[in-house]
């Protein structure tokens, strides 16, 4: 029996010693099929949160098609979600998976190596920390957290247990975003002066009267640590993003993507801004109680500023995108614009545009700062599970990026400029703001 060094996590030495001692006839199933990993090299995964994103994007889009993964279990507090996810697993693999309502039961299984968490934001910290304490590696959707304090606790748990923890900020596994940040980090646009992120806003939502939760949903469990609220359909299942008890609105939903790229370009993955102020428009009649529109300004030590907008660019972006020949001219609504002393770079999921198209041909030297290369966020996670290296969006990175977003929301709610100490992770001289670094949890939950 052969194995690549570091590729088999589960007691390989024990098994190989036993195999050597055993008779020489070894079952064929032990060996991998051509082009596929051996069954013992597969990462056994449990999926926690199998609503739309968990099921459509992760389970069906990434986990089930991946030969390096064996799905063992699914978990959701909505019976329809978990049963449908289990059906998907059986349909695609022919093998049944265990079905759980309580993530703790899934995590307590010793045969599960890793979990993917795609629950609403207010559940990320509790589920992730429990999983890490159970010895599982974790992939957790962005935004990593509901509060700054939760992020630090998640980092602490990851370090305590040696967890390979990937935050789902998958833009970092995209060549275009990496190139943009490498251009910035290597001063190809001169000294970086400002970053603008465009992330769109959210509408007011529609009121629905409180009603009895549907029989398939354990509403009390769905609420978990959040304050009690009566059920209405538009409060959960995707719409949770727009209620501050469960999420941080567009600021965290898309801010976790583009402010994360801003942090990458600035080179602030282990720190953050030192000042934040913002204007948020909150709908007069609700029900969405997050900022509908906003402009938030951050200052980093060293003088670089970050401006996070819900509105589109107030000017036309003019330039020739990477891979194209014709100039484009339009107002952008979603993306990251880095402006330096000698030029600019704009990057989004659909394009990279620079002030000088020659920047696309930049040949980086060995003296240049090269950023972490990942071609696929889930593959990177699996690679790191094997190698025990930190993945491209390690938990600290996810925490710092989410913190930028939380700082923005806090500044908007308090309507005043705030000074932030990124080393102590506290506001300077503002007790009230410091209360908002964390949130109490509804009993019996705690970090």
């Amino acid at each position, binding site marked *: 029996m052969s194995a690549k060094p570091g590729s088999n996590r589960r007691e390989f030495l024990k098994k190989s010693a036993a195999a050597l001692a055993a008779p020489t006839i070894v079952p064929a199933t032990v060996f991998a099929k051509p082009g596929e990993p051996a069954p013992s090299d597969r990462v056994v995964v449990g999926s926690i949160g199998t609503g739309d994103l968990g099921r459509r994007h992760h389970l069906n889009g990434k986990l089930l098609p991946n030969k390096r993964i064996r799905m063992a279990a699914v978990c959701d507090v909505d019976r329809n979600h978990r049963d449908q996810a289990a059906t998907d697993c059986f349909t695609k693999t022919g093998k049944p998976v265990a079905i759980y309502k309580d993530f703790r039961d899934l995590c*307590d299984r*010793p045969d599960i190596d890793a979990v993917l968490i795609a629950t609403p934001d207010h559940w990320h910290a509790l589920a992730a920390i429990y999983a890490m*304490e*159970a*010895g599982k590696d974790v992939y957790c959707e962005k935004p990593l957290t509901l509060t700054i304090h939760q992020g630090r606790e998640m980092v*602490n748990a990851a370090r*305590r*247990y*040696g967890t390979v923890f990937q935050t789902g900020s998958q833009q970092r596994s995209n060549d275009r975003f990496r190139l943009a940040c490498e251009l910035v980090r290597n001063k190809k646009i001169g000294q970086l002066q400002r970053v603008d992120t465009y992330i769109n806003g959210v509408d007011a939502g529609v*009121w629905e*009267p*409180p009603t009895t939760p549907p029989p398939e949903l354990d509403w009390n469990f769905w609420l978990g640590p959040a*304050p*009690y609220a009566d059920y209405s359909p538009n409060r959960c299942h995707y719409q949770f993003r727009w209620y501050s008890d469960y999420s941080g609105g567009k600021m965290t939903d898309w801010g976790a993507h583009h402010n994360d790229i801003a942090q990458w370009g600035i080179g602030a993955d282990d720190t953050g801004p030192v000042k934040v102020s913002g204007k948020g428009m*909150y709908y*007069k*009649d*609700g*029900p969405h*109680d997050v900022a509908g529109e906003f402009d938030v300004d951050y200052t980093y030590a060293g003088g670089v500023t970050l401006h996070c907008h819900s509105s589109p660019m107030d000017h036309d972006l003019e330039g020739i995108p990477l891979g194209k020949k014709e100039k484009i001219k339009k107002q952008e609504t979603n993306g990251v614009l880095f402006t330096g002393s000698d030029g600019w770079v704009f990057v989004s999921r659909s394009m990279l545009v620079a002030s000088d198209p020659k920047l696309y041909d930049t040949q980086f030297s060995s003296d240049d700062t090269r950023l972490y290369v990942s071609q696929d966020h889930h593959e990177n996670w699996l690679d790191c599970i094997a190698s025990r290296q930190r993945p491209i969006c390690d938990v600290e990175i996810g925490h710092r990026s989410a913190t930028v977003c939380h700082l923005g929301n806090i500044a908007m*709610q*308090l*309507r*005043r400029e705030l000074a932030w100490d990124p080393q102590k992770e506290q506001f300077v*001289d*503002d*007790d*009230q703001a410091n*209360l908002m670094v964390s*949130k*109490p*949890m*509804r*009993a*019996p*939950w*705690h970090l």
Partner: protein
Amino acid sequence: MANINELAKQLGSDDQIKVYQAKQEMVLLTAAAGAPGKDRQRSDMAAEMANCLTTEMPQKDNKGKVSKVPELNARGRSLVSRYLANVGDQSEVAALERAMHDFDVREMARWALARMTCQAATDALAKAAKTGIGDEFRVGAINALAGRSGSSVRETLVACAASPSPEVRLAAAEALACDAEAANDAVLAKVAAGGGKRTGMRVAKARLRLAENLVAAGQKQAGRQIYQQLADGKYDPAQQKAAQAALKHVG
């Protein structure tokens, strides 16, 4: 100047939109009142809000007996408690403590005290942990004590760690792990001994955290001792592995 009493009544409304609007107004007002240098404003607003929690009115029952009941309904008092946490200090703790006697309001009153950092809030939570009705409520108060300092905290948690209720015992053990006090390990060990496999697992996780806190507080020897026991003993592999890694790091 906003009429806090009217806003509080609006928080208790059956009209969702009116409640929402009152919440938004409360967020604005408490943010302004709680800004640095606005101590008088903060204190005045907090006092008015506390007053909303405690104001009573006479009510006659169907036998003609008159008793005093809160003027503001339970929903209103829950939400006032929530926003009081943004501006309250020790002067408002008594009102929140009183609210904790109402089953329909106590969770939010406890939540508010959990957010307040003054000693009076700590003492109120300690009292709720010891004498509150219902395990879940007591567990909430115990959770809120984790990481707080003061003699009432440790004394309360140690007492709760001996509770007949397994959930209360476990919550107390987990809260004691947040305090860098070497003697807490013996309490945790006792909680583990009194429970089954799941209790043992939860306490092992708590002991790992305790060890980490001890080392961080400069009590390396005490931390190392716990790590060694976890590394050597019959604990689940995740705790053993973490303890072994920590031992290498502590040296």
